[in-house]
């Protein structure tokens, strides 16, 4: 059974924003949506391995800072050129003001 890892405090992320979280040699992106839900995906764009945490969150889309590849961060779905491979997503829960992700 995969364990839940504490990624950050719930208030460490602004609404409609993203931060980077590194754990055990892997990198993740943690999102807070405009309606105040939390999500997590792999941290690197599937196009050229760029950290998505430098990108812009608009509604439920994260846009890669390098070449504007777009993903729905809630589902991981790639939304068109230049990205064609979906992002892996991870379960998230908020407990006691902390954001936890299940890294699997």
């Amino acid at each position, binding site marked *: 059974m995969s364990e839940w890892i504490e990624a950050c405090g719930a208030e460490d992320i602004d609404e409609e924003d993203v931060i980077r979280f590194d754990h055990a040699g892997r990198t993740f992106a943690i999102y807070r949506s405009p309606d105040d839900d939390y999500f997590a995906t792999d941290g690197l764009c599937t196009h050229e391995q760029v*950290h998505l945490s430098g990108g812009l969150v608009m509604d439920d889309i994260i846009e890669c800072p390098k*070449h504007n590849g777009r993903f729905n961060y809630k589902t991981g779905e790639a939304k068109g050129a230049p990205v064609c491979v979906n992002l892996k997503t991870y379960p998230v829960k908020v407990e006691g003001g902390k954001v936890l992700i299940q890294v699997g």
Partner: protein
Amino acid sequence: MDGGMVIVGAGECGARAALALREHGYDGPVTLVGDEPHLPYERPPLSKDAMMADTPAVQAIASEAELADKSITHLRPVTVASVDRAAKRVKLAKGGELAYDRLLLATGATPRRLPMPGLGARCVYLRTFSDVLAIRQHLKPQSRIVIVGGGFIGLELAAAARRLGAAVTVVEAQPRILMRGVPAEIAAVVHAAHEAHGAEIVCGSGIAAIDDDGQKVRLTFANGRVIDADLAVIGIGAVPNTGLAEQAGLRIENGIAVDAMLRSSDPDIFAAGDCCSFPLSVYGGRRVRLEAWRNAQDQGALAGANMLGLDLPVSSVPWFWSDQYELTMQIAGLCDEAETAVRRDISENAFILFHLAGDGRLVAASGIGPDNAVARDIRLAEMLIAKRARPDPDALASPDIKLKKLLAG
């Protein structure tokens, strides 16, 4: 409707157009004609990661399987000899013809040639993957490279060459590098980074003479200096490939002239990407030609849609980027309409200049910094430019005020 869709040029633009035709549900024949032997590939890495790789490889935009799956016929390497508009056919150089209902010219651009005698095997240009292979073998410690032209291609190549240990001199005829489209304040940061990494940059001097014996190339600068190099790479801009369009009698105006829907003076022929000039709505419809990856990608997708009659106008804001050493520069919009600039410091070594027109409209934003430090704000600036916003200069200059707030306002 029996000819189907023919696309001449299998770079970023042509490949995106072919894929877009299928995404929009077109089920007739799609033929993509490319004059290179490779699958359609991304050109930006050619002066960067692909050049620095131990074994350079093409980064394909679509795999053989994907093209087959989408029934896209990719002819390569095949050169188109002419277009017969009356018969709606393109003639191939090796013989044979392709009938079309709609034709897209995505022919790209070719490096501008240095107009002087003396160039030989040790004088090369960089545009294609085969150019990469020719250049790469000379990028090693103990080799000496001269790059003629301090534009993006030359400077990115200089950075790659330094990373691989070659001695590098960049010679630029203008008083500074990146004269076209990049503010002096940002060019100065790039210049300093090159010097810190051991590349020499000589501005204000052209090339007076070249003597290339096929083993070495001797370059004599206008200022009298002489350098014997293993390789000279010439990066002095590019010219649009308009030959086919000219021969077909299409209107040419700094590239193949198209309307906002990327339609040429023949309604069944479209042109997109580096080879065309088009009216840019966000700047009052002034006619521009862009040599940029994202433009090629966006216009390819748009052309694919418009070949099917969707009539979608170009509405995007020009955007491009460059990577050199640890720095990334990003520019959105066109600076030349600006009268003033406002600086926003993102961090100690990252900043953005917001370029404002006389009426306060944000017309461009240019930023530089390590990695992607400026990316998010440049993207927001691009949206502000698209909205023709007149943001408060004081807010632009204050890093604590989020640009997203200005966008909402």
